[in-house]
Structures are given as C-alpha cells and as structure tokens.
C-alpha cells in the first residue's frame, strides 16, 4: 500500500482564521497529523504559507478540502514523501 507520510504545501489564506486556528483545523483532519506552518509572506488581505503535514497515512484529499473549507487556496504541492508499505 502506498502511504503518504509527508507533504509540503504552498497555500494562500485570508488573515482570518489566524495561523494557529488554520494549523489546528488541518491537524484535526487526521488522528495523528503533525502540522508545521510557516508564514512566508503577508499582504494586505492575504498570507502565503508553507504547510508541512506529517502522519502515518496523510490523506491529501481531506487536507485539501479542510484548507478550502477554512478559506485557504492550495497553490502547489512542493514536497511529498511516500512509502510503499506491505499490506498486512
């Protein structure tokens, strides 16, 4: 089974919700997600973020829909780490 272990995303979001709430919402999308968020740029109405999500199995679709639900816009997937795990 191919398991996504880590993804780094480039995301644009409005100032609200703030970085902490944004991070918490993404972490809440999985049971063991660890999220690291870095604000790269702040504009008048938006912020550009780099978001790193790590977990045993990161569900990209869920992460993406969580980001859009809270008002963010995914610009690109910058890094991915995938592991081929034997089916148990």
């Amino acid at each position, binding site marked *: 089974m191919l398991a996504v272990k880590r993804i780094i995303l480039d995301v*644009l*979001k*409005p100032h*609200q*919700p703030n970085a902490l709430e944004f991070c918490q919402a993404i972490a809440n999308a999985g049971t063991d997600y660890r999220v690291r968020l870095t604000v790269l740029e702040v*504009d*008048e*109405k*938006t912020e550009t973020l780099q978001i790193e999500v790590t977990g045993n199995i990161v569900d990209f679709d869920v992460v993406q829909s969580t980001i*859009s*639900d*809270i*008002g963010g*816009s995914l610009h690109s997937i910058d890094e991915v780490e995938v592991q081929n795990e034997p089916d148990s």
Partner: protein
Amino acid sequence: MNLIHKIKFILRLTRSHNIVRRYFIVNGFDGALTMLGLIMGFIFSRTIELSVILNACLGAAIALGMSGMSSAYVSESAERHRELEQLEDAMMSDLKDSSHGEAARRVPWLVALVNGFAPLIFSLLILMPLFLSIAGVVFPVSPLYIAILIALLLVFLLGVFLGRIAGVSWLRSGIQTLFIATVTATLIYLFTR
C-alpha cells in the same frame, strides 16, 4: 462544533464582535428611551386605561424590533457581500463554500437578531410592571412609575456596560447615560404637559 463555538468562530472570522456589541447598545438604548417617552406621555395624559397603554407600548416595541432586525439585515448583508467579494478578488478563488462564505451568509442574520431583539427585550422588561398589574399583581405605586424606574435602571446599566468596555469608570459612564435619559424625560415633561 457546537452552536456557541460556531457563532464565536464566525464573529472572529469576520471581526464582527464590535459591530454586534454596538448594535446591542445602540438599539437597546433606543428601546429603553422609546418606552420611557411613551410611558411618560401616557402619565401626562392621565385618564388612559392600562391595557391601552400596554398595547400601544407593545406595538411600539414590536415595531422597533422589526425595524432593527430588517434594517440591520439589509445593511449587514450588503457589507458582508462586498467584503467577501473583495476577499475573493485578493484570494483569486471562490470562497462561497468556505467558512468565509458561510460567515458572510450567517453574520447578517446574527447581527439582525441582536439588533431586533435588543430593543424588544429592553422594552418588554420595562413593560413588565404593566403586564403584572393587568394580571392582578397589586403595586404600592402606579405600575407606570415602576416602569419608568426600570427604564432608568436599564439605561444606567447600559452605561455601566459601556464603561466596562471602554475601561473607564463604570459609575461615571452609568451616570452619563442616566443623564441623557433625564434630559429626555425633562423634554417630554416640558412638551407634553
């Protein structure tokens, strides 16, 4: 997310705390002063029945509530729509299905409810002695005077609330709003006798 958390979240998202608070104070004050004016007018008219006074005041309270609700909804709805469009332009994406879109749809209702219910609840509190008197409760003085006292007390409490928000003396702020109510009462006395 429970309802309270949801409301807090959308208020934070749209930074509407201040607007809701302002609407509550402004329209609560409106309700209290309108009832004060009506009741004082009836006191100076002397011979009117209590049920007529209650109906007139209740009619005014409902009208204030409906007016507050509809005007706030229309204006807030337009404001939120405009803000969402500006945010969508900045984000270069459609936010209608996001929490921002949801907030833009719900905040006008929330503000409208506060704006409508504030004068209505304040008015009903002021009219309470009239309701009780009609229901058979006997007061040592006319229920109209008790209603005026409640109106003055509510105006004072609104001032206290304002003082606490501004971080200034609550007593001074309470006395300031009470002074406004007293001036209103004096003007009504002068013009309706």
